[in-house]
């Protein structure tokens, strides 16, 4: 297929995935900030939402202090923020239009329909209740988009590039949450304990829709190292780094066997996957959770660049 088409498919999926993630981050922040002030966590949930979305620097150009109204606007609706939900859906739709022939009509109708509805949906989201409606709508769009791709696309390179986009973005998102929140998962912090930690931990899980999964996997109360284990190493958990890398490596393998050629991106994905498979959460904590996460984000970016060089240009 055309390199440009593969590139658009890859980014189309990434942007839809990112919109979904931002909706979850905002939901988790809204939930945490609604807790009684008496818990006195000392952290600003809105600030960490901006950090988790990876746009702290840009945010500071427009606002002094992060608070509910400006963060919601910035992450959900702002046109100044190229990663706001609105911008993501717009870029996704433009990419979809550019590769109209490479996606199925079900996928196109989902993303084009979302783009058409977006102005009304955004206009309605003025109070907290309707904000939740808006975020639910965004999550539903991504489910429908993902689901229609899964159900209707031919299993060929177009599908594999689209899937690659989803999983590279998803791995990045999960790693970012860990990057911003790693301190509440550290053992010294856990010793402090208390309700606020529970809420913080639950919020992390909620942002990756894994709160229920946690209970099914570990069958015990929330423990920070188990949360880290679930998000980093657990193969069953669809948003864990290990699971994302399993999918990334598999999709890259399908590409290389279809094209009959192996390259840098296959080697890199394999090696990241093997590192994750052979790691244990104790080791990660011993050598530093933060260092591990920072290293992972850098590797994930390197893989994105390798895919671009090998296939997308």
């Amino acid at each position, binding site marked *: *297929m*055309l*390199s*440009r*088409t*593969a590139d658009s498919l890859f980014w189309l999926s990434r942007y839809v995935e990112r919109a979904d993630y931002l909706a979850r981050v905002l939901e988790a922040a809204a939930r945490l900030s609604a807790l009684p002030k008496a818990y006195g966590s000392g952290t600003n949930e809105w600030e960490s939402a901006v950090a988790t979305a990876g746009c702290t620097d840009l945010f500071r150009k427009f606002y002094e202090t992060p608070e509910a109204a400006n963060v919601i606007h910035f992450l959900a609706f702002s046109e100044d923020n190229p990663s706001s939900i609105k911008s993501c859906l717009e870029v996704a739709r*433009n990419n979809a*239009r*550019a590769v*109209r*022939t490479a996606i199925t*009509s079900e996928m*196109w*109708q989902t993303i*084009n*329909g979302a783009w*058409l509805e977006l102005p009304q949906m955004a206009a309605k989201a003025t109070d907290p209740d309707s904000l939740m409606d808006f975020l639910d709508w965004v999550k539903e769009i991504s489910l429908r988009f993902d689901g229609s791709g899964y159900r209707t696309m031919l299993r060929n*390179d177009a599908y594999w*590039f689209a899937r690659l986009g989803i999983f590279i973005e998803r791995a990045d998102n999960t790693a970012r949450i860990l990057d911003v929140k790693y301190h509440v998962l550290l053992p010294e912090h856990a010793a402090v304990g208390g309700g606020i930690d529970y809420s913080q931990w639950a919020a992390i899980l909620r942002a990756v829709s894994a709160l229920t999964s946690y209970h099914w996997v570990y069958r015990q109360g929330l423990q920070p190292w188990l949360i880290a284990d679930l998000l980093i190493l657990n193969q069953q958990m669809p948003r864990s780094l290990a699971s994302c890398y399993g999918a990334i490596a598999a999709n890259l393998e399908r*590409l290389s066997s279809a*094209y009959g*050629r192996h390259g840098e991106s296959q080697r890199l994905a394999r090696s990241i996957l093997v590192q994750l498979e052979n790691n244990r959460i104790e080791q990660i904590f011993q050598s530093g959770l933060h260092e591990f996460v920072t290293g992972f984000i850098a590797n994930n970016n390197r893989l994105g660049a390798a895919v671009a060089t090998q*296939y*997308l*240009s």
Partner: protein
Amino acid sequence: MPFDEMRLEDGSVRAPYLEVAKWLEGVTSAQLERRRAEAELFYRRGGITFAVYGDAQGEERIIPYDIIPRILAAQEWAKLKAGLEQRIKALNAYLADIYGPREILKAGIVPPDLVWRNPAYRPEMAGLAVPHGIYIHIAGIDIVRVDGDDFYVLEDNARTPSGVSYMLGGREISIRLMPELYGAHRVAPVENYPNELLATLQSAAPRNATKDVTAVLLTPGQFNSAYYEHSFLADKMGIELVEGSDLFVRDSVVFMRTTEGPKRVDIIYRRLDDAFIDPLVFDPHSMLGVPGLFAAYTAGNVTLANAVGTGAVDDKVVYSYVPDMVRFYLGEEPLLKNVPTWRCRDPNDLAYVLDHLSELVVKEVHGSGGYGMLVGPHATGADIALFRDKLKADPTNYIAQPTLSLSTCPAFVDMGIAPRHVDLRPFILTGADGIRIVPGGLTRVALRAGSLVVNSSQGGGTKDTWVVES
């Protein structure tokens, strides 16, 4: 009273419309309105839109769609089809001639300056053998009726005619939203158009191409007004939709950049004007084209559909000579009529036109899209005065025609069901293995009462066109 294709002046219904007339009596405005709204939603959700240039507001608009189909009897269509085949053969022969031996000029039939001074004539094409001798692989010939007998050609579009996606979209809507009416007729299918187009393109591959040929559709990109159509056709044919930057030329061979490395391209269905296809030969500022493409073309390594320089027949003065071309190249009498045309370049014609401006339609020789024309009977005194000055200043740039009383068909408009003027654009495909025309074409309808301008850029809409076996 213009000729109405459904109802004659005595109130009786013409045979092809018997079922439609019966159906219209039974259906309510509310039912029609609901279907109209559903049809609009179909276009909107499908992204079946076009862009109006110079309109900041509506980057993407949909073309109004009228849900009442236009009916042609199979016998009427057979007659029209034979005429279209004849005309496209003559047009193709004319292009092969003016880029080759120029017999028609030597015979004194077409004045030479109509070739040499025509801005759409491409001297680079002179003496060049195009693959299989085919110039116009895809043509759209605009047809109007004024009575139940004859078809008139309004203009020939031999560059990159568009609109076929609306023909196919309209059919999809008929089948979905009008099943009872559709089912009551034996409607000849048009859905195979993309297959016919692909077969045509493949048949036109260069002779030196391998057996497994690769065709692509070259689009100017997603900001082009017809982008939806480009993507739709590429999709239905299963070929890549490429932009100029996706292609490159090495050793006079065209390749596309793919995820598996360079892949050779044999046939380019280009929806990009001549001027933009290769900055090395034509417009050097073009960012849309492919440097070296023309060299690959002249080396015989790639087929361009349509060929370069086909615009030389879109000219409205050249149009007036097409009946002569039919006689000259085919030795036949033309089956389709031409609208009588005054060539303002001729002093006698000009004098007549200046005396009768309020009755005539005056058009620019190279105009299109319904722009830059004067419709005498509907024009103000100021418009007429303006055109009088224009005509005197540059007579060669204009032709004039009588104001035809275009036929009407029933349409569903704000006030209910009313007759509206229509034309028809059938699409004619010419491959190395023959001519293909899917039955019908795109009917364009002027939705404003009394308007004769059917162009989508000027408020026209479309209708599905049913060729019906009785």
